[in-house]
């Protein structure tokens, strides 16, 4: 448990890695919109191509990327099955008792599969694999900063995210220690009914909560000692700066968007 990877940042130094995190966040949203723009086989083909291109540009090994897709395999298969069996259409391909499979169902299922695939690739390549959690937090704070005008606590939100990221490994380690201590006292976490096992977790959660509160207390004192007084008048060591390459990336994505809309106009029997 100690070696849990926080995020899955995979440094290769590619163009996408070097891009401004704010731009990547915007592009990720744009890419999600793109996947929902697709209406027919041409546009779905284009988005699939774009996803593969994205992986190649990021220089992240295909194996690593496919691993993150494996986690969502169940959802993909589930959507596939539901779409194949539940879609009603005009061209009946197969019939047996209550099962009817239409051509439209198969087409739909393939489209959905491509859509989920593109969603995962788009967000993981643009964000999780190529952006550190801290850069992401910066980007969110920076992009949402206009909302400070209407008194939304954006800085506080970003600070909370940073501290949460900082303390996840610490609390993980602590959980392990408490579990070991309870095991040494004869606690059993692996046997018995579900309710019994859930109950066995209470002696872990209570000390964990107590210690988390104590940590929070000490941390707040330490932060105050280091002159923390909220976001007002605060500077940052890292300065985010858009570069020409960021705008080129944006143009590429905008072109993709426009291309998809154009492709949707082409006539084909394979359409949603």
């Amino acid at each position: 448990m100690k070696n849990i990877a926080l995020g899955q940042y995979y440094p290769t130094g590619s163009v996408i890695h070097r891009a401004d995190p704010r731009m990547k966040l915007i592009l990720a949203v744009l890419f999600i919109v793109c996947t929902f723009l697709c209406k027919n086989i041409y546009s779905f083909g284009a988005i699939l191509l774009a996803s593969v291109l994205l992986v190649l540009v990021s220089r992240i090994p295909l194996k690593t990327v496919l691993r993150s897709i494996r986690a969502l395999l169940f959802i993909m298969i589930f959507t596939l099955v539901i779409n194949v069996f539940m879609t009603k259409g005009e061209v009946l391909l197969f019939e047996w008792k209550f099962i009817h499979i239409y051509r439209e169902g198969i087409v739909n299922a393939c489209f959905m599969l491509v859509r989920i695939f593109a969603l995962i690739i788009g967000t993981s390549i643009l964000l999780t694999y190529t952006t550190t959690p801290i850069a992401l937090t910066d980007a969110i704070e920076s992009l949402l900063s206009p909302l400070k005008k209407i008194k939304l606590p954006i800085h506080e939100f970003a600070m909370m995210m940073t501290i949460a990221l900082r303390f996840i490994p610490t609390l993980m380690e602590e959980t392990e220690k408490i579990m070991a201590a309870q095991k040494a006292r004869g606690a059993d976490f692996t046997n018995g009914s579900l309710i019994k096992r859930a109950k066995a977790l209470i002696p872990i959660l209570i000390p964990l909560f107590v210690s988390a509160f104590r940590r929070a207390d000490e941390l707040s004192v330490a932060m105050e000692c280091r002159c923390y007084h909220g976001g007002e008048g605060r500077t940052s060591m890292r300065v985010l700066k858009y570069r020409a390459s960021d705008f080129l990336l944006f143009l590429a994505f905008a072109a993709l968007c426009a291309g998809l809309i154009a492709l949707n106009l082409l006539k084909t029997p394979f359409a949603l």
Partner: protein
Amino acid sequence: MENEVFIKAENLSYAYEEDDGTPQKAVLRGVSLEIKKGEYVAILGHNGSGKSTFAKLLNMILVPDSGRLWVAGHELTSETFDEKELLEVRRKIGMVFQNPDNQLVATVVEEDVAFGPENIGVPSKEIRERVDKALETVGMTEYARHSPDRLSGGQKQRVAIAGIIAMMPECMVLDEATAMLDPVGRREVMDTVDRLRAEKGITVLNITHHMNEAVRADRVIVINDGKIYMDGTPDQVFARAKELEAVGLEVPQCTALIDALREKGVRIEGKSTTPEACADLLTRFLKKS
């Protein structure tokens, strides 16, 4: 500059409050002292003697119930003391706490060191310079991009110290900063403190109950039951072993060894608070006899 008073306390008292607001027994009962600029002071005392409370008064984490307190030219207990002065005092007095995990804020070492300067609004470029320099001073440059949770206790405390150096303080308060460390980590931290004193000449207050750390200081203050019990050089303080034992403190092992030998009738002259001095005394004695 050498004799400038940096911290001055007059009759300070403080009592923690119960949840309902009624005061508990006072932890500090009339503490008066002066600490000069550049001094290295160790503050000793058993648990609950009020030594950590005293540290927390210095940068206004706690506000004294009565008495007056001056720090770095600001009177903390004055009526006109404001937010701006408070930040200035907190910048000048850096604190390192006991638990290394609970004082690091960021997920990357250099980000954490930058936290203090960011809070006081130092320009970005200058923060970068200060961070690099601070990490170099504590010898943690190669860990700049690491995550703090992979570091050892001693390394984490060094990062915490770097975070303070980056704010260019005039004084550093170590509040039992080595209590949770192993001997190696403890040495790392104490050596870093020594180096800082040599390089920057900042005032150091080390609140501890490790006698071996106390002997490194120029001056030892013993606090007992909310009052100053002893105040002097390590040699002076540790010569009074019986009085220290009465308040639950021990003398350093080497001092205890010489004292024990003397009690058995061995006639050794001189004082010893450090292992080196002790070895020296013993060799001289053995050569003589």
